[in-house]
């Protein structure tokens, strides 16, 4: 049988890096083929070359045995290649139907298309309302739109770029069922991910990429997570230290019945949120993004002040009326989700960015800045968190995303705060660096800091947290000790199916 798609020697060179270096790959009809690699390994570049978004510098593509040059995405779609992007390629202010119409080459009537969207989406177990505006949809539903958009074109090859990073475990299973059905119908699927368990559960074959090169192919069913990880990273995965002192019982951050209407029309209203984070404890907030995390964080960081000081207390001090600087004075450190703009000023050097939040660490004398101390702090941060940069005088925007994240998280952690609030602390960071950050957060906790982590990565939360709550639709579930729950239950809560049982008593955390 001829392979549906065969790649020979695909190469793409950028000025600073060779993103893909002579990559070979072949996929048969009906095969689910994993492309496995860390962030920055070149997976996305490879897929964009197949889809005609970017042009390869060298290499051939054989489609059903015939050599082709894929000129642009429209050409790829005509051949029968569909792609679901990692960062969605949707138009937020248009409806589902309009979004899908934009991807259909033939002329089709809007009402007839809406009908087809309904039929096909239900047929594959991913129901959609064609008349909704995309910005009003949750991230998971938006992904359905992308998938249905591809399926309506009856693709012969479907490329999925990290499709599960925003889905609950239940939604992942639904999607896997859909993909298996598609494969049974003869569609080939290229599945890009760095999540090992998913690849073992779903894929027939895997090609592993590291640093732009193929480092091996494997039958995922015959491998273990550890052996796949070794092929992906080149070394064994370190585990976070598990022995840790029992969490403290003294409350550090307390939120009392916080309710707030969202400022933004597309935002989420916060509904009666109460929460306590104790000293020496890591509390995780799980949830699909867009369920109130942004709004809650703005209130916690002080970017949004409240009129009722007692609603938020830090170490017993009313703080809800204070701004960000005053809250930092009470011992708060804060890692926002957006690195550029909120976490760091892109055009300033690493040293200057250190001063912005860490100036309390002895960097101001008689009202003047002491830049040597700031530089020493920046050097310490770069060393401790393995930040890859030219020098501490380089602007922050010369760092890659992962390194920027390490730098910002490190800057906050080294202040030894009484309370650390971190949103997506390892987002976009590769496996090794993520481990460094998690280890540092655990170290902080062991020294008595109260830590609040907001993340969409359930694996991360289960690895580092003592207790978990779930945020959905602006409401919080009662906290539950990590040992007393599992991904399944948390996933249900994330989907909005709140526990009907009473709140778990807080003492259960020590059991």
């Amino acid at each position, binding site marked *: 049988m001829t392979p549906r798609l065969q790649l020979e020697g695909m190469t793409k060179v950028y000025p600073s890096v060779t993103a893909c270096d002579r990559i070979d790959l072949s996929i048969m009809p009906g095969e689910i083929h994993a492309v496995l690699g860390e962030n920055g390994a070149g997976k996305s570049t490879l897929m964009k070359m197949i889809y*005609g978004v970017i042009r390869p510098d060298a290499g051939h593509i054989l489609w059903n045995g015939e050599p082709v040059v894929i000129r642009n995405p429209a*050409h790829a779609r005509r051949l029968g290649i569909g792609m679901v*992007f990692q960062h969605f390629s949707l138009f937020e*202010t248009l409806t589902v139907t309009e979004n899908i119409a934009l991807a259909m080459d033939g002329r089709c009537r809007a009402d007839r298309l809406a009908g087809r969207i309904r039929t096909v989406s239900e047929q594959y177990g991913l129901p959609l309302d064609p008349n909704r505006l995309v910005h009003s949809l949750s991230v998971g539903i938006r992904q359905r739109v992308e998938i249905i958009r591809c399926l309506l074109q009856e693709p012969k090859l479907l490329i999925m770029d990290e499709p599960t990073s925003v889905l609950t475990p239940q939604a992942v299973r639904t999607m896997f069922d859909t993909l298996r059905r598609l494969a049974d119908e003869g569609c080939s699927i290229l599945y890009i991910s760095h999540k090992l368990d998913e690849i073992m559960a779903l894929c027939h074959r895997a090609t592993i990429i590291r640093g732009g090169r193929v480092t091996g192919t494997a039958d995922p069913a015959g491998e273990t997570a550890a052996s796949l990880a070794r092929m992906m990273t080149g070394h064994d995965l370190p585990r976070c230290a598990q022995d840790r002192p029992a969490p403290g019982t003294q409350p550090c951050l307390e939120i009392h019945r916080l309710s707030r209407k969202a400022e933004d029309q597309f935002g989420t209203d916060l509904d009666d949120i109460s929460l306590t984070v104790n000293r020496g404890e890591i509390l995780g907030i799980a949830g699909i993004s867009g369920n109130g995390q942004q709004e809650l964080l703005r209130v916690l960081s002080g970017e949004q002040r409240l009129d009722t000081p007692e609603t938020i207390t830090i170490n017993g001090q009313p703080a809800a009326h204070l701004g960000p600087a005053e809250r930092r004075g009470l011992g708060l450190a804060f890692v926002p989700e957006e690195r550029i703009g909120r976490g760091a000023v892109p055009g300033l050097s690493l040293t200057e960015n250190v001063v912005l939040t860490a100036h309390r660490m002895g960097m101001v004398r008689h009202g003047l800045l002491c830049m040597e101390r700031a530089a020493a702090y920046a050097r310490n941060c770069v060393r401790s968190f393995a930040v890859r940069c030219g020098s501490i005088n380089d602007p922050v925007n010369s760092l890659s995303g992962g390194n920027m994240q390490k730098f910002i998280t490190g800057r906050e952690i080294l202040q030894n705060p009484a309370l650390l609030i971190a949103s997506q602390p390892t987002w976009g960071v590769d496996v090794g660096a993520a481990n460094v950050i998690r280890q540092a957060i655990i170290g902080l906790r062991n020294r008595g800091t109260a830590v609040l982590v907001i993340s969409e990565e359930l694996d991360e939360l289960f690895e580092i947290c003592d207790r978990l709550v779930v945020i959905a639709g602006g409401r919080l579930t009662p906290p539950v000790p990590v040992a007393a729950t599992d991904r399944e239950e948390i996933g249900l809560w994330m989907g909005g199916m709140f526990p009907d049982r009473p709140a778990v008593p807080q003492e259960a955390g020590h059991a």
Partner: protein
Amino acid sequence: MNGHLLLEILVAAIGAGTPFVYAALGELVTEKSGVLNLGVEGMMLVGAICGFIGMAKTGSLLVAVLAGMGAGMAMALIFGVLTLTLMANQVASGLALTIFGVGLSAFLGLTYTSIALPGVPALPIPWLSDIPVLGPLLFSHDILIYGSILLYAAISGFLYRTRAGLILRGLGEAPESAHALGYNVIGIRYLAVLFGGAMAGLAGVYLSVAYTPMWVEGMTAGRGWVSLALVVFATWRPSRVMLGAYLFGGITILQFHIQGFGIDIPSQLLSMLPYLATIAVLVLISRNRQTIRLHSPASLGIPYHPQS
């Protein structure tokens, strides 16, 4: 104020609002594609003088219209090459285009300042123009005014009923997504910029050939800037552009009449009235943040670099 005078003011308001209709609807299409062209005033002026020259030389309105639209498109093409191909800053390029247009039109018009044109005859539509009130208000205008109303209908239909309009709106919302779906972002933006230039040129032709049929240096008198502001305050919706254009025209005419009555208000204050009233009305009716977000092109003014 009696009914006859009111009708007269309303009829005059439609004429006074028409240059804004052309220029603002053209700019609306440009901005919907995500490109901010601040050169409307300059394109209008060059369109006005080229249309005027065409009319003076040939006496043909068609030639005047084609000359004005062509001149506006040529100006827009300069802007397009600068911002879309060479990726220059859109704000600075647009300002430069206006300054260039002011100078170029003055230069081209040097020998035409003392000529008066016959104007464009009104073209009452048979039967319909005999209806009391509505007849003179809607059906007794010149052909350029009818054209502006047809343009409004065409653009509304284009934006919200056709596939091409959908592509244009999507492109202005998320050019990266449009590129990923295989649309030629730069090419479509060129078309939108050229269309905006043609309409600005036509607005100029209306001014110099029909509204006040003569050439005066700088005769657009800020109408290009008002058109730009109308697009924003109308939150990128054609119907509100029309409302704003006629409101502005109406109050301009009204304040002339108030001055004529000899009411003791300084004329400078009255001259401010159209600007204040139009902005106040449009801001008040368009203050819903959700609808603003839905209609404003998210990529406005941001250059798009296609990956290779």
